[in-house]
C-alpha cells in the first residue's frame, strides 16, 4: 500500500512535467492547427539559456524566469517569422497539408543544430535548486523529494495562471475565440494574427518551464527533451489535444501509469508503454479520454 502510494506520488511529479509539455503543444494546436514538434527545440534552447544563467550566477531562481521569458520570445518570434508566412502561402497541392508540420520539423533540426554549435553535445548537469533526497517521516524516507514537490507546485501554479488567463480575461476570450472560430473572431474585431503570436509565446513559456523542471533530475544535451516531447504529445492526445484541462489530466494519467509500470514491471519498458498507451487511446477513443466532443480531423 505504501509502495503504491509512493509510486503514485512519483508519477504525479513526472506527469506534471508531461502536462506542461502537453499544454505547450495544445496551445499551439488550438491557435494554429499544427502539432509543434519544434517545441522540444524551443524548450531546450530556453533551458540552455537558463543553464547559462545558473553557471554564471549560481542562482536557479533567477535562471527560471529568464528561461521562461526566453521561451516566450522564441515562440513569438517563430510565429512571426515562419508561421505567418506559411499560413499566408500554403493553400493547396500535395504538400500544403503537411507543410506546417514539416516546417516545425525543420525548425527543430535548426534549433538543435544551433544549440549544438553553441554548447556542444556533452551532457551537462544543473545544480539542484532543492534537495533530491526523499522526505523523511520518523524513520521512513520516501522517494518523493523536495525537488518533486517543487515540480508539482510549480506546475499547479502555472496551470492556475493559465486557467485564470483563459477563463477570466479578455485576452483569454480572444485566444479561445480565435482558436475555435478565427473568422468570427476577426469579425468581432480580434486581431487573430497577434492573438496567435501570443498563443505561441505562452506555449514557449510553458515548454521552457517544463525544460527547467525536468533538467535538474536529469541531464542536459541538445536532444535531451525529445522523449519529453513524445510524452507531452501522448499526454495531449489522451486529453483530446484541444483542451487545457485535458492536457493536465492527460499528463497525470501518463505519468502515473508510467511510474506504476516502471515500479512493478520493468524499468526498460517506459517507451514501449507510452507508445502502446498512445496507440491504444487512438484506436479506442480517438477523441481523447477527456471531454472533447468534436471528431478528429486535421
Amino acid at each position, binding site marked *: 500500500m505504501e509502495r503504491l502510494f509512493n509510486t503514485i506520488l512519483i508519477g504525479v511529479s513526472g506527469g506534471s512535467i508531461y502536462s506542461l509539455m502537453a499544454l505547450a503543444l495544445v496551445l499551439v494546436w488550438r491557435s494554429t492547427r499544427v502539432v509543434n514538434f519544434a517545441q522540444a527545440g524551443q524548450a531546450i534552447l530556453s533551458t540552455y539559456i537558463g543553464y547559462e544563467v545558473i553557471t554564471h550566477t549560481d542562482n536557479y531562481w533567477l535562471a527560471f524566469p529568464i528561461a521562461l521569458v526566453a521561451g516566450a520570445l522564441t515562440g513569438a518570434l517563430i510565429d512571426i517569422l515562419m508561421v505567418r508566412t506559411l499560413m499566408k502561402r500554403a493553400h493547396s497541392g500535395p504538400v500544403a497539408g503537411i507543410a506546417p508540420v514539416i516546417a516545425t520539423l525543420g525548425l527543430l533540426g535548426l534549433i538543435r543544430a544551433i544549440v549544438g554549435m553553441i554548447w556542444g553535445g556533452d551532457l551537462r548537469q544543473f545544480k539542484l535548486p532543492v534537495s533530491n533526497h526523499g522526505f523523511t517521516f520518523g524513520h521512513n524516507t520516501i522517494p518523493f523529494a523536495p525537488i518533486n514537490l517543487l515540480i508539482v507546485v510549480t506546475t499547479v501554479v502555472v496551470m492556475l495562471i493559465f486557467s485564470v488567463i483563459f477563463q477570466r480575461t*479578455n485576452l483569454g*476570450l*480572444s485566444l*479561445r*475565440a480565435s482558436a*475555435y*472560430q478565427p*473568422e*468570427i*473572431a*476577426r*469579425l*468581432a*474585431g*480580434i*486581431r*487573430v494574427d497577434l492573438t496567435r503570436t501570443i498563443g505561441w509565446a505562452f506555449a514557449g513559456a510553458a515548454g521552457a518551464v517544463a525544460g527547467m523542471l525536468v533538467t535538474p533530475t536529469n541531464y542536459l544535451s541538445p536532444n535531451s527533451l525529445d522523449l519529453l516531447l513524445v510524452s507531452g504529445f501522448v499526454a495531449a492526445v489522451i486529453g483530446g489535444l484541444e483542451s487545457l484541462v485535458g492536457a493536465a489530466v492527460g499528463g497525470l494519467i501518463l505519468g502515473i501509469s508510467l511510474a506504476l509500470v516502471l515500479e512493478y514491471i520493468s524499468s526498460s519498458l517506459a517507451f514501449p508503454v507510452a507508445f502502446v498507451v498512445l496507440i491504444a487511446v487512438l484506436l479506442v477513443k480517438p477523441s481523447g479520454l477527456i471531454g472533447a466532443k468534436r471528431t478528429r480531423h486535421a
Partner: protein
Amino acid sequence: MSGLVISELNISHGAIRAVNDLSFTVKPGELAAVIGSNGAGKTTLLRTLSGLKSAHSGSVEWNGQSILRKKPEDLVRSGIVHVSDGKSVIPELTVKENLALGGIWRKDKKDVALATAEAIELFPRLGERMQQSADTLSGGERQMLAIGRALIARPKLLLLDEPSLGLAPLVIDQIFQAIKALRDRHNLTVVLVEQNAMGALRIADIGIIINLGKLVASGPAHELIDNPSLRAAYLGY
C-alpha cells in the same frame, strides 16, 4: 459622398465571377435589402464589404473612404459590423462570452456595459441564458445572439447575411421587426441580405435585386414589391 457607395465591383472565386459589375448606393440611415436566389453572390458581396474577401476590381466607399483592402478587424473599429450567415456565434463559448466578444476591442467599457444591457433588453431571451453554452441555443436564439453581439460593437453600418435562414415564420418576423427597430432607434445603415424577398422588402427602404452576380433591379422597396415582372421572376410570390 456619404453612405455606402459601391461602383463597378467585381469579385471572383478563382475562375468564377461571383459579383459582376455591381453598382448601388445606400444612403446613411437607410435599410437596404439585397435580394437574390442561391448563388447570386450575396454572401460574397458581404464578405468583401467586411474585408474578409478581396475584390477583383471596382470600388467601395463608406462615408467617402475606400474600404477595399482593409482588414475586417479594422473595419469593425470604424463601425462596419458583419453578422455572417449560419448564425455567427461561437458554440464553444457561453452566451455571455459571445456577447462579450462584441465589445472586446472597445476602450469605453461603460458604454459596452450599456450596449450589452440594450441588447438584452431587445432580446430578453439572451438574458435568461447568459451562462449557457451557445451550443444549446435554438436557431432563432443564435441569430438573436449574433445580432446582439454585433450591436455591442456600436455599428454604424450593419451587414446581415440571411438572418431568416432556417427559422420559423414567427421567429423571422420577430427578427425582422428587431432589425427595423434598431435602425429606427440608432439611425443605423443596414445592408440586409435575404432570400426571403417579401419579408425583407417590407421592412426595407430600398431593394437591390441581383442574379448571378449582376444587378437586375434596384429602387424603393415598395416599388419593387409592386412590380409584377420582378415578382414573377425574382421575388417568387
